[in-house]
């Protein structure tokens, strides 16, 4: 058994005048590497008032996105050894830039509003065929690296452009999904989708710092997708 020091962001807006950091020590088994979520569960056993979201515990649902030792990630698939390092200390904060509902739970409304703006569904007014709208393997391949996004918000909440303009900049997750539909051979609304992105904020507030790429727990590359949207805008607009 070994000790892990955890510092957890605590804030209940209904009771607390300001947030505080709570320090806890938990004992973990030394024979296997735990995930950060496992350690959080041990901390919750000590203090049941600690609040966070979690569901699938295998990096699929995207519920437990949080800031782990300064880096956004999913607690359920971030190994303790990688997050805490040799200092064996964890600092857990909510995803930055969004209002805190309680402790590690943030209000994702702005994130979802931006996602909704890009119309995340196929637009095709042709009568549907009897079975399904077919794609060639090459057309389908264009969606790889795009459709896998689980909307955990780790990327968007690590982006300063989203922190400063969360009501106008769509953010990396929304733009990755926007390109997922722009690249889809079955979608017929390319021109309309691009027209809605050609303002100074929605796409062009991205400064290409690639925080999104470095934190994506699924290994996706929103910056590349944003670059492809820009290229499509250039092709359409010039």
């Amino acid at each position, binding site marked *: 058994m070994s000790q892990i020091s955890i510092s957890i962001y605590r804030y209940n807006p209904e009771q607390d005048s300001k947030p505080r950091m709570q320090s806890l020590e938990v004992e973990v088994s030394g024979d296997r590497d735990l995930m950060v979520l496992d350690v959080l569960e041990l901390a919750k056993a000590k203090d049941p008032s600690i609040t966070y979201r979690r569901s699938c515990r295998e990096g699929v649902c995207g519920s437990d996105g949080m800031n782990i030792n300064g880096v956004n990630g999913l607690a359920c698939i971030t190994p303790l050894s990688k997050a805490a390092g040799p200092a064996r200390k964890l600092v857990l904060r909510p995803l930055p830039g969004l209002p805190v509902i309680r402790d590690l739970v943030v209000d994702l409304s702005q994130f979802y509003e931006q996602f909704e703006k890009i119309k995340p569904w196929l637009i095709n007014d042709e009568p549907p065929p009897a079975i399904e709208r077919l794609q060639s393997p090459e057309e389908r391949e264009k969606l790889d690296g795009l459709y896998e996004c689980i909307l955990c918000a780790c990327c968007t909440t690590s982006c300063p452009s989203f922190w400063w303009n969360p009501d106008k900049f769509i953010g990396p997750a929304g733009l990755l999904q926007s390109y997922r539909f722009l690249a889809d051979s079955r979608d017929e609304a390319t021109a309309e989708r691009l027209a809605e*992105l050609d*303002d100074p904020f929605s796409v*062009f507030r991205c400064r290409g710092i690639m925080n999104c790429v470095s934190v994506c727990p699924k290994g996706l590359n929103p910056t590349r997708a944003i670059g492809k949207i820009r290229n499509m805008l*250039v092709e359409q607009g010039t």
Partner: protein
Amino acid sequence: MVTNATSLGRSGLFDWLVQRFSALVLLAWIAWVSIGVIAAAEFGYPQWRALFAAVPMQIFSLIAVLSLCAHAWVGVWTVTTDYLNEAHLGKAGTAIRLLTQIACLLLTLSCLIWGARIFWGSG
């Protein structure tokens, strides 16, 4: 509230293209002047004057000053709309941003006119 009203072209694509194109013009101008200085066997005030006396160089230099002003405005607009807003500065955010933008615009226009006088002035 932050809006598009004071952006250079109201279009994200236009501003983005202006910033990239102006950067290329400035790079070419710096390279051209640097070559002019380095390639000269002897360099002093007469050579410097001669370099800028040629009409093509004067045209290129004025385009470079215009590019500098456009490039600066797109950058300043981005920075001011990121940091000088209600979220950072409270209710006074919009007024502070507009005043800063007006000051930067006046400075940019002054630089443009000053640059034109230097490159095209008779003195």
